[in-house]
C-alpha cells in the first residue's frame, strides 16, 4: 500500500503533463521523425543489400564490407538516427502507442518500394495499406502515455 502511493506520487505529474497540447504535439513531431527515418533507412538498406548480394555470416567482417556500399552506409546511418528518435519517443509515450502508430512506416515503405524500387502493389497489398492506416488512426486516438511504471521527471 505504501509502495502504491509512492508510485502514484512519482508518476502522477508526468501523466497529468502528458495530456497538455504542447506535450502531445512534441510527441507527434517525434513520431513523424521516427517514421521518416525508418522509411528512408529501410529503403536505402534494402536497395543496398540487394546490390551487395547474399550475406549470412557469423563474421562481422562481412557486414563491415557491406557498409562500403553507399546505400547500405546511408541506410545504416539513417537507422541510427531512427534508433535515437525512437528511444526519445519511448521516453514520452507507451510502447503500445508507439508500436501501432509507427507502423505507418510499413505503409510508406510499401509505397516507396513501389515508386523507388519498382515493387508491384497488388490489391491485397492495397488492402494491407488501408488496414494499417485504420490501425494507426485507432492508436492515435488513445492517450499517448498511461504507463504506471516508475517514471522519473526530467532531471536536467
Amino acid at each position, binding site marked *: 500500500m505504501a509502495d502504491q502511493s509512492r508510485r502514484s506520487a512519482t508518476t502522477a505529474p508526468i501523466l497529468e503533463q502528458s495530456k497538455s497540447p504542447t506535450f502531445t504535439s*512534441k510527441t507527434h513531431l*517525434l513520431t513523424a*521523425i521516427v517514421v521518416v527515418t525508418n522509411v528512408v533507412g*529501410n529503403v536505402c*538498406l*534494402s536497395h543496398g*543489400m*540487394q546490390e551487395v*548480394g*547474399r*550475406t*549470412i*555470416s557469423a563474421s562481422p567482417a562481412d*557486414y563491415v564490407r*557491406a557498409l562500403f556500399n553507399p546505400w547500405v552506409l546511408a541506410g545504416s546511418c539513417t537507422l541510427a538516427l531512427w*534508433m*535515437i*528518435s525512437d*528511444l*526519445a519517443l*519511448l*521516453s*514520452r509515450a*507507451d*510502447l*503500445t*502507442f508507439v*508500436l*501501432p502508430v509507427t*507502423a505507418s512506416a*510499413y505503409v510508406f*515503405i510499401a509505397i516507396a*518500394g513501389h515508386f523507388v*524500387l519498382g*515493387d508491384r502493389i497488388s490489391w*491485397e*497489398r492495397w*488492402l*494491407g*495499406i488501408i*488496414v*494499417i492506416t*485504420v*490501425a*494507426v488512426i*485507432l492508436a492515435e*486516438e*488513445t*492517450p499517448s502515455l*498511461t*504507463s*504506471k*511504471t*516508475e*517514471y*522519473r*521527471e*526530467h*532531471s*536536467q
Partner: protein
Amino acid sequence: MKWILVAIIASSNTVGDLLNTAGMKRIGAVEDLSLRSLLQLLLAIGRSPMVLGGIAALAIGFFAIMSLLSIATVSFAIPATASSYLVETLLAKYILKEDVRWRRWAASGLVVIGVVLLRW
C-alpha cells in the same frame, strides 16, 4: 534458414522494445531535440543497463534483418517479423502496466493483419 532468422528477429525485437521502454521511462521524458539534450540523452543511455541491453537485443535483430534482406525481398522480411506485435502488446500491458483497451488491441491486431496482407 529464412524462418530461423524470422524467429531471431521477432524475439530480439520483443526483448529490445520492452527493455528500451522500461529504461527510457526511468531516464525521464526527453523534452526537445537540441544538440545539448541529445548529448544528455546519449549520456543517460550510456549509464542505463536496461537501454544498453535493449539496444544490444535490437542490434542482434538488426544483423538478422540484414541477413534476411540479402536472401529475401523486403516484402517478405518486414511482414514476417510483425508477429511480435501481439506478444509485445500483451507484455506491455502486464509488465509495463500500460492502459491497453480495445482501441490498442484492435490497432496491434490490425497491424499484424495489414502487414501479412502487405506480403502479397
